[in-house]
């Protein structure tokens, strides 16, 4: 007991002496992490992720955020200054983003919107772009685990992406827009 007590006493002064530095140290670590996050991982957040990632998207797009509650899901609408509107559909059961829709003068950064589904999307999109007969047309990706649809032209783009298996019961793809 005495050994432990003295040990504790030795520890405590050390801790208390540095406790005022701790918040600034944590802040520095957090800032550093955020910098890495913003620069090295710009694509993080989006489809299939926790709803908290909506705030990450909002920050990255320097956008305003508005939430509306529907019966089977929550829609978080992010509007970027340049007019791109992204709606993220969140399942209340899982807390995850199961669909994303967008509209605006340009398409959004798909890497950011699709998150871990981006590679799958890009492979499918590039396979389509490589087909001999079509270059300029709507994009329709229909994979078992991922649907992405996008169309439009300069100054007017719209599209949606969703994970079919994650659609809440009673919600159809038509609701995502």
């Amino acid at each position, binding site marked *: 007991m005495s050994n432990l007590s003295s040990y504790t006493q030795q520890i405590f002064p050390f801790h208390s002496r540095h406790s005022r530095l701790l918040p600034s140290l944590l802040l520095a670590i957090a800032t550093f992490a955020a910098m890495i996050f913003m620069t090295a991982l710009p694509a993080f957040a989006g489809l299939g992720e926790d709803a908290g990632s909506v705030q990450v998207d909002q920050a990255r797009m320097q956008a305003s955020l508005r939430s509306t509650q529907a019966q089977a899901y929550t829609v978080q609408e992010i509007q970027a200054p340049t007019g791109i509107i992204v709606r993220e559909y969140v399942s209340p059961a899982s807390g995850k983003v199961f669909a994303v829709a967008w509209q605006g003068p340009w398409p959004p950064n798909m890497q950011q919107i699709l998150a871990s589904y981006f590679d799958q999307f*890009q492979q499918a999109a590039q396979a389509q772009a490589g087909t001999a007969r079509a270059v300029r047309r709507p994009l*329709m990706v229909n994979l078992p685990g991922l649907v992405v649809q996008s169309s439009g032209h300069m100054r*007017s783009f719209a599209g949606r992406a969703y994970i079919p298996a994650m659609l809440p019961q009673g919600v159809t793809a038509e609701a995502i827009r």
Partner: protein
Amino acid sequence: MKSATAGSATSDWVMNKKEIRIGNRLLGVVACGALLFAASCGGSGESTSAPSPTPTPTPTGSNVQAITVNVGPADNYANGAFTSVTVCVPGTSTCQTIDGVLVDTGSSGLRLLASALTIPLLQQTSASKPVYECLPFVIGYTWGPVQTADIEMAGEKASSVPIQVISGTAPSTSLCTGGNSDTVTSLGANGIVGVGTFPQDCGDGCTTAGPSDLYYGCPSSASSTGCVAVAESLAEQVQNPVALFATDNNGVIVELPAVTAPEATLSGSLVFGIGTQSNNGLNGATVYPIATDTGNFTTTFDGNVYDQSFIDSGSNALFFPSSIPQCSDLSDDFYCPSSTENLSASTAGYNGTPTGTINFSVANADDLFNDNPTASVFSQLAGPSTIDSFDWGLPFFYGRNVYTAIYGASTPGGTGPYWAY
């Protein structure tokens, strides 16, 4: 609105192919063809008008640029209208004519593959950094430096025009995250000349710098690493060259003859100006105003209203939502009805007026491609689109003179932007 009968406009050649495959469908084709003399071939009893009249003979003049629908320089295009564009080092006679440039009424600005350019154009800078642009299309994007050139088409000339020279890969943080269209094969062309409804590609949205911008200042021309978004004034942005012509600068007309069967090539004209010469009057075409921010109007099809509809010579086909089966073997990007469907839609100005009816046909895309391996002109090619959009691609232009009036420009049909046909 929708009727589904065997194809009335199908060629004898294609009909023969169908006859071999499915004998009983020939009866439908012949019966329907006979009914054409009664000016009706719809299964629903709705009257359908005869195909649009072929435009008047090829116009001539200093404002007429020849265009050709063909497979393009990559030998891979369907329904692409190509032309040649002459670019010059500004203020000099150092010029180069580049052919195989896609005529696109759905975008604005000239974009040329760096690999097709042999003359040194002037690099635009912002705070002494070279300016680059990310330009997203629905499929693929173009990335590359903004440079200045004099542009000549037909007898028209635009001086010191910012254009995009396509090369390199866009920053992953930009809006350009699809496939990179930086080669003849991936672009399907040596360049794109955007002669659409806007004077610049981006507009007011790019006059302040932000994370969703198109323009970047880059530290070097070698890589997109370290590029940061920069503000570009309207005049600095990539420009619709037509808007900068000295005359005939309020819009264009795309004139292509009607076709009924797949063809290898089709010749037509890109006429500059609307009502500025004896050869570019509206001639009774109906003017459809379009939204000034989005460039869209409205299409009603099969009981659904699509308010993000547009006319786009740069789209390969007619694209719209439908229950028509999508192709499964070639790709699911086109429709493959079991027999050609004759359909009808109505278009309206963005504010609801005027309205008009458009008749069109959708053939089986797999059959079109497989039966016509060397063709590039497919008037009955169509495919799916997203929920709110009807994209009237190049097949819409066959047999119509389609007017595209530029935003803010005065024309005999009113102030742009509008489409007329």
